[in-house]
């Protein structure tokens, strides 16, 4: 037994790293790899990747509170390098981004209040997971069907159908011109989209890109090309705000963990952005839809199937 322990120490000693805030020791290469993988997705789809990374961090033994807070910090970095690439290609609608951001900051603050209220009720885990299942299921399903239809029509030789551009949204007041997106619409829908994303981002511990990207395409009618850059722009500021909230109230941001994830993540995002350019919008959307549905399925499965360990150990509130 003692020998075994020694051997393990020698084999893993060089790669293990002790995280000062999380207070666990993990393999540095594992973190770099996870960051890189999620970074590629972030660059390809314009999603922060938090909805994948946060559950993955739980699986490798990072305390959930630390995972959620640190993930916000890591998303800032991976989105930052992504948005720079989009700025160079002029695929960021700054005006739309700012409108979404105003909604997002208000939403994030509201979300933290809701989160703390649910925590007091003692069922925050369940509600977070249900949120994931419902949102990922609906959005993933809708995107999957829509993209499949678009691909099928393209394959038959017909033109890709242009999405319906005139709906109830165009009857609302406070219209504003968004030149980059080629839109002239009311500011109310983007503000509400930003607000909802902010609330969900704070509750679910994610950037919210996986909700915002479809909302921008289907609800606001923005062109797919500018959607990715603009959502990244909004995500940076909302997650930076969330990071500060967590760092000052819960002390759960682990900067060592964040740095390891972001070194992998930043490189991954650069690769992902280049892959994204080479792929068709429909292909990108169907891939994202499959990924969203897979995460949704896993979470739903965990809620429905009897867990192998019925008990869990947690810290007592207020200690």
């Amino acid at each position, binding site marked *: 037994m*003692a020998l075994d*322990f020694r051997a393990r*120490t020698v084999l*893993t*000693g*060089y790669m*293990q*790293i*002790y995280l*000062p*805030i999380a*207070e*666990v*020791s993990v393999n540095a290469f594992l973190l770099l790899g996870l960051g890189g993988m999620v970074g590629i997705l972030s660059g390809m789809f314009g999603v922060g990747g938090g909805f994948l990374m946060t559950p993955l961090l739980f699986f490798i*033994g990072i305390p959930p509170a630390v995972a959620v807070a640190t993930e916000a*910090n*890591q998303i*800032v*970095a*991976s*989105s*930052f*390098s992504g948005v*720079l*690439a989009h700025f*160079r290609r002029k695929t960021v609608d700054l005006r739309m981004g700012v409108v979404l951001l105003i909604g997002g900051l208000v939403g994030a603050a509201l979300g933290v209040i809701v989160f703390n209220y649910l925590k007091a009720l*003692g069922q925050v*885990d*369940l509600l977070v997971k249900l949120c994931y299942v419902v949102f990922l299921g609906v959005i993933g399903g809708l995107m999957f069907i829509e993209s499949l239809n678009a691909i099928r029509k393209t394959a038959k030789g017909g033109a890709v159908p242009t999405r319906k551009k005139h709906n109830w949204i165009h009857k609302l007041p406070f219209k504003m011109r968004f030149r980059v997106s080629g839109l002239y619409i009311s500011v109310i829908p983007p503000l509400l989209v930003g607000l909802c994303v902010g609330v969900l981002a704070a509750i679910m511990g994610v950037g919210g890109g996986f909700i915002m990207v479809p909302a921008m395409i289907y609800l606001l009618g923005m062109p797919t090309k500018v959607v990715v850059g603009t959502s990244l722009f909004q995500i940076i500021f909302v997650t*930076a705000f969330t*990071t*500060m909230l*967590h*760092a*000052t109230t819960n*002390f759960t*941001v682990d*900067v*060592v963990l*964040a*740095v390891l994830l*972001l*070194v992998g993540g*930043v*490189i991954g995002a*650069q690769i992902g952005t280049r892959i994204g350019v080479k792929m068709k919008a429909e292909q990108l959307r169907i891939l994202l839809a499959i990924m969203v549905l897979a995460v949704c399925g896993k979470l739903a499965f*965990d*809620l*429905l199937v*009897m*867990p192998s*360990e*019925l*008990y*869990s*150990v*947690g*810290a*007592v509130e207020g*200690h």
Partner: protein
Amino acid sequence: MRWLIAFLFLASPAFAESVVLGLSQNEIAITTSFDGSEILVFGAVKREAPIPDGPPLEVIVTVAGPDEPVNVRRKAKRFGIWVNTDAVEVDRAPSFYAVATSGNLRDVLSDVEDLRYKVSVPRAIRSVGAPMEITDAASFTEALIRIRKENDLYQLMENHVAVDDQTLFRGRIELPAALTEGAYETRIFLTREGRVISQYETAIEVRKVGLERWLFSLSREQPFLYGLMSLAIAIAAGWGASAAFSLLRN
């Protein structure tokens, strides 16, 4: 691993047999590359009289991390999904607890003495106040022990202390990587026929050092600054990698 040899001599005249103890280290430093540690506990039995007749001397070593209250929750099926329904607050549970003995625990220590000195893992945990509606509070403490045993946080190592000629003893306690800071209370018991005849206590300091210490302190004492620093590092790395990539392309 650094070997800090610290011999602590203590002879208590109240007992006919008492412990003279050595620890391989009385301080554990958590550095960035910390991946668990092990402590060698070795010592001798000091006695004024010859070795008594009868069953041989047995030795028990315990190491306990800082106490903390924990919430143990249980899931049950409600409306088709598994949700946390019942919860029991365990008033006091050590964050780490290891027991190493020279024989089977039940042979070297009687139930009465275990209750008195709180040696075995279940005895080291104190749970009162379970809510009225929970009739099986014991299964919650059992679950706590089971979960922590799986993570090597609670260990019972029987026949893990070697005793030579009823005088010299040595044992080894392995500490996992996931340690919390604090004083780790280390106790040595000498027993005969299940009764404790001598007890010795010392503490091992577990604390973060260097970068670990600095970051941890900053995050607690200057959280706003720490948050800004984390963001600055993140953005700098993001921008840096992006710039490096475009340089590579051109």
